[in-house]
């Protein structure tokens, strides 16, 4: 019976589709922000959590890469004593900072970007690019590797030249998973970055690989004891701290957009259901006269609201995947990493909110008198 009841109370098709499209758009907005957040988290975690690095050593007060760009440095003179600590298999410096980079295009005006530049020791120092999409690791002082979205924004490809601080570099590799939305990663030789940023003799972090069988926590404690001004984090701790920093920037926006999106979706569904209840008053009175109870009709109306929200959510998911594919091909600077779990949670939220939006109109059902069936 419920199926027929729901169908008998369906609103006008065009309005229903408009409501579905509205819910889908709201859902798309939330999925896009959530996916962007997920993408930045993954990029940070991809770099900070890369295999081969067991410990991140940072100056006191720094526990993530974003703050590391601005706060404190480690003198390079600490590097050899640190390497001598029992259990340390390898330790390399990393220098990071936001540096202005410009393309050296043969035609047209040069394009400028500020990139998160990471200097690391060639050819096999720790802390290099986590994954390549094209090209190879840098092998000489004047070669760099950069994120493919940064390359797109600068309009450069493999073999092209870029400049930072009046030094020319050749792009030899493109990386993926290194786009953090506001900026992207560029990897260059440690000394080149140090020279460009006038930070010679200093490092932002020292990354450590433990010897097989060595206890990471013990090494961390030894480092902190030997160098009171430094802190040592396991890879997991450092990744979590980066996560927290990214979340601090993203979560408020994500929460705001989610609340606004849900509110808009609830209003759209509520308005549609309100119009159904008002316009179909006569039909509802007939159903009541036939003996259908207000609760059954109410459930029918709510089911319709839930169905609209579900269709909107489904359309939103399809649009989100379509948008991701489109962005990947045509605008790689906006990375979207869609998580199935996020999508499912957001869809459930939208379906519940849509149904909740219909509650107020459902309450109005009690004002309908079945006697209206005799007058309609």
């Amino acid at each position: 019976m419920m199926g027929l009841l729901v169908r008998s109370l369906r609103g006008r098709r065009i309005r229903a589709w408009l409501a579905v499209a509205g819910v889908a758009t709201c859902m798309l907005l939330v999925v896009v922000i959530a996916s962007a957040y997920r993408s930045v988290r993954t990029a940070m975690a991809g770099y900070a959590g890369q295999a081969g690095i067991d410990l991140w050593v940072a100056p006191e007060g720094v526990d993530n890469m974003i703050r590391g760009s601005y706060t404190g440095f480690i003198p390079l003179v600490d590097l050899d004593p640190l390497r001598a600590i029992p259990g340390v298999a390898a330790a390399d410096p990393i220098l990071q900072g936001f540096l202005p980079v410009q393309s050296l295009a043969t035609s047209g005006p040069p394009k400028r970007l500020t990139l998160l530049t990471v200097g690391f020791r060639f050819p096999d120092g720790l802390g290099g690019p986590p994954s390549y999409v094209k090209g190879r690791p840098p092998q000489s002082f004047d070669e760099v590797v950069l994120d493919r979205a940064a390359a797109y924004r600068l309009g450069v490809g493999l073999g092209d030249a870029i400049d930072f601080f009046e030094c020319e570099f050749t792009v030899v590799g493109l990386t993926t998973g290194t786009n953090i939305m506001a900026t992207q990663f560029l990897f260059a030789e440690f000394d080149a970055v140090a020279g460009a940023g006038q930070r010679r003799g200093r490092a932002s972090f020292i990354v450590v690989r433990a010897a097989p069988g060595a206890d990471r926590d013990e090494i961390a404690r030894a480092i902190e004891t030997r160098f009171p001004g430094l802190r040592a984090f396991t890879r997991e701790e450092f990744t979590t701290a980066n996560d927290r920093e990214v979340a601090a920037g993203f979560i408020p926006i994500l929460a705001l957009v989610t609340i606004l999106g849900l509110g808009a979706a609830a209003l759209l569904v509520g308005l549609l259901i309100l119009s159904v209840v008002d316009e179909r008053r006569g039909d509802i009175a007939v159903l009541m006269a036939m003996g259908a109870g207000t609760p059954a009709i109410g459930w029918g109306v709510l089911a319709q609201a839930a169905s609209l929200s579900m269709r909107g959510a489904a359309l939103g998911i399809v649009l989100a995947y379509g948008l991701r594919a489109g962005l990947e091909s045509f605008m790689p600077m906006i990375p979207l990493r869609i998580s199935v779990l996020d999508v499912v949670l957001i869809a459930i939220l939208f379906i519940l909110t849509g149904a909740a939006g219909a509650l107020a109109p459902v309450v109005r059902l009690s004002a309908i008198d079945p006697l209206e069936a005799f007058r309609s």
Partner: protein
Amino acid sequence: MRPLVLDDIWKTRGSGGREVQVLHGVSLAVEAGEFVLLEGPSGSGKTTLLAVAGGILTPESGQVLLDGRPLHGGTRAADRSRRAGTVGFVFQRSNLLPQLSVEENILLMGRIAGLKAAAVRREAEELLRRLDLYGLRHRRPCELSCGEEQRAAVARALVHRPRIVLADEPTGNLDSQAGQAVAESLADIARSRDSAVVVATHDVRLAPFASRRIKIEDGRILADGPTPLSQERT
């Protein structure tokens, strides 16, 4: 058991200072298979009487008995469920639900009345054939003529084999031929199923179908007497 008994029904409509006493101690009993015409001018209380008899309105005093059992007094859901299973309504307009096909409109009534899906399908098919609507069963109400729509409304009112069918001006919007067809269908099918029919109407063309005519004015029954079907129809 009489399908419908109204015993000393008093009913007021309106609220505040605009209350009007619509029914003044109306009593009547309808036998199974009867076709009763309820005649009277506009505002005489015909529709209110039908609504009270069908359990849509609750009287201030008096009792409505369906099959010997009070219609009001149980829980709201129980009263409604009993009303759905026992009463069929035909309105002045067909009031078919526009989003459903003819067949679905009929099936929905059966399901609301508590019939099992297979039983409703069987009943619906029989009624659609008897009312010459079988070929139109998948059409939406907007694709039917007024007469076809009203015949579909008759099928809807009868699908659950109600003990009593209450019809409010069922031929009011139809031309004489369509009105005749609707009245004939209603009378024949109801009689064959032993359902009682009460029709509120101004339409004198319905008189030939009635086995009894009740005159109502200002909420009081003025006349109530048999009209032998054979005499009127000839």
